[in-house]
């Protein structure tokens, strides 16, 4: 326990140092470049504060978060199901895995034109692209973990008379959870990148990506940097705070 706590403090310190260094380099760039190309850090922070007090910002934030939530949630669900099923079916496993590896190498943003035409201008193409980005790492990590579930854990469940469903729920699922969480964190990174870039391209209703693209179009560099700041802070908070918390909760037994 004391061990995990001390590493927690160390990683917090590392984050603070990293943020300071990043802001420092930004500020140095701002000193050398004219204001209309690179705003000072305090100016951007000032703008961020104004944004936080405006309604428009929250509309965009809400839109982006619901697209992320639906896309990422669906990807997790289908990724877990396909991973578990694929991992237990010896016949299809290697083919399925090869298919995932091939599809995974396509940047999710490359699907935008296809789904934009297929589904029309709206939320749907963005959500689907987010889901595609998150689905593959989830499915792959679950499938790999399912394959390597300890034989004795399966045999023990069989001699205790477990049904297929009980086996999946009580043995396979908890056994793959550690790798699933690693996969889900990787998937979150993909989903986040897909979300912002898809919003920038599609530009349907308000959203973090659209707001960034719009600031660029009107050459409002303070707006650009403020949006980038928001995107970075949100990703760090979701990954490091929310997902880490869930991880500690689900893997509680490992931290005792």
């Amino acid at each position: 326990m004391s061990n995990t706590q001390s590493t927690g403090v160390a990683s917090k310190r590392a984050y603070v140092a990293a943020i300071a260094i990043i802001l420092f380099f930004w500020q140095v760039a701002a000193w050398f470049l004219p204001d209309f190309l690179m705003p000072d850090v305090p100016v951007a922070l000032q703008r961020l504060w104004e944004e936080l007090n405006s309604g428009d910002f929250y509309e965009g934030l809400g839109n982006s978060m619901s697209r992320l939530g639906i896309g990422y949630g669906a990807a997790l669900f289908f990724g877990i199901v396909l991973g578990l099923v694929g991992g237990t079916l010896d016949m299809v496993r290697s083919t399925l895995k090869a298919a995932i590896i091939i599809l995974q190498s396509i940047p999710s943003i490359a699907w935008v034109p296809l789904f934009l035409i297929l589904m029309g201008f709206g939320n749907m193409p963005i959500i689907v692209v987010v889901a595609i980005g998150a689905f593959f790492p989830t499915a792959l990590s679950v499938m790999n973990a399912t394959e390597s579930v300890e034989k004795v854990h399966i045999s023990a469940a069989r001699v205790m008379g477990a049904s297929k469903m009980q086996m999946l729920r009580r043995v396979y699922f908890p056994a793959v959870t550690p790798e699933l969480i690693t996969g889900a964190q990787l998937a979150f990174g993909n989903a986040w990148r897909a979300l912002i870039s898809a919003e920038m391209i599609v530009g349907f209703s308000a959203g973090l990506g659209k707001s960034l693209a719009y600031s660029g179009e009107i050459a409002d560099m303070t707006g650009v940097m403020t949006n980038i700041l928001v995107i970075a802070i949100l990703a760090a908070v979701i990954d490091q705070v929310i997902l880490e918390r869930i991880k500690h909760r689900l893997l509680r037994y490992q931290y005792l």
Partner: protein
Amino acid sequence: MELQFSEVTKSFGDLNVIRQFDTTIRNGEIVALVGPSGCGKSTLLHMLAGLQQPSSGGLTADGASVAMPSPERTLVFQEHALYPWMTLLDNVALALEFQDKPRKTSLAEARKWLSRVRLVGFEDYYPHQVSGGMRQRCALARAFIARPKVLLLDEPFGALDALTRMTLQSVLKDLIEEERPTVVLVTHDVDEALYLADRVMVFSQRPATVLREVELGHIPKTHDLSAFADVRREVLNLLGIDTDEHIPTDSQGETA
């Protein structure tokens, strides 16, 4: 439950592990299978559990062919068969939950069984938090809670130190006396076989053939096995262990 092997043969590819094996294990009998590593005795046990099928020949339990695992014939593994993501209590209760018993009664039964193996106070510990001996106590509780007609033990105490092993052997002996299942024990430990079993079968190297069968009968025994010194010596000799005492003379001692 009467277990019968008739002309059972088992091969893995070209590897012939068991050839034309015949034996009958009577209802309530305690049989120990002793032999060198890799001689196929574990395979016999796994076939009894229904985890593996004979390549040819028949295997029956009370006249019915053994085709798949059943909680009637439960198996205790050497180690690591407890689920690391569950507390000891949940691990034991799981055996009943897999038989669709309600969770509440399963937990109550599990508490009772943990106290029978002297694990009161450790219900909420996870397997990695307790010693190897305690894990195997828990494994015994998990096996007995389902009231199996046949108890199969695959080197259950093989990974424990000598003293812990003897304590666990006593715990197991008491449980067997109280519950009276038919028992098949696979072990490397000749003393364990003599202490626990009514009948000891000594196996040769692969393909497994019975070199010798010793009927001890169902008699009360203690860890003092001096009354079985002759049998013990004979079994050890069959397993290739020299029991003639070599007392080095002075000159040999000096050169060595």
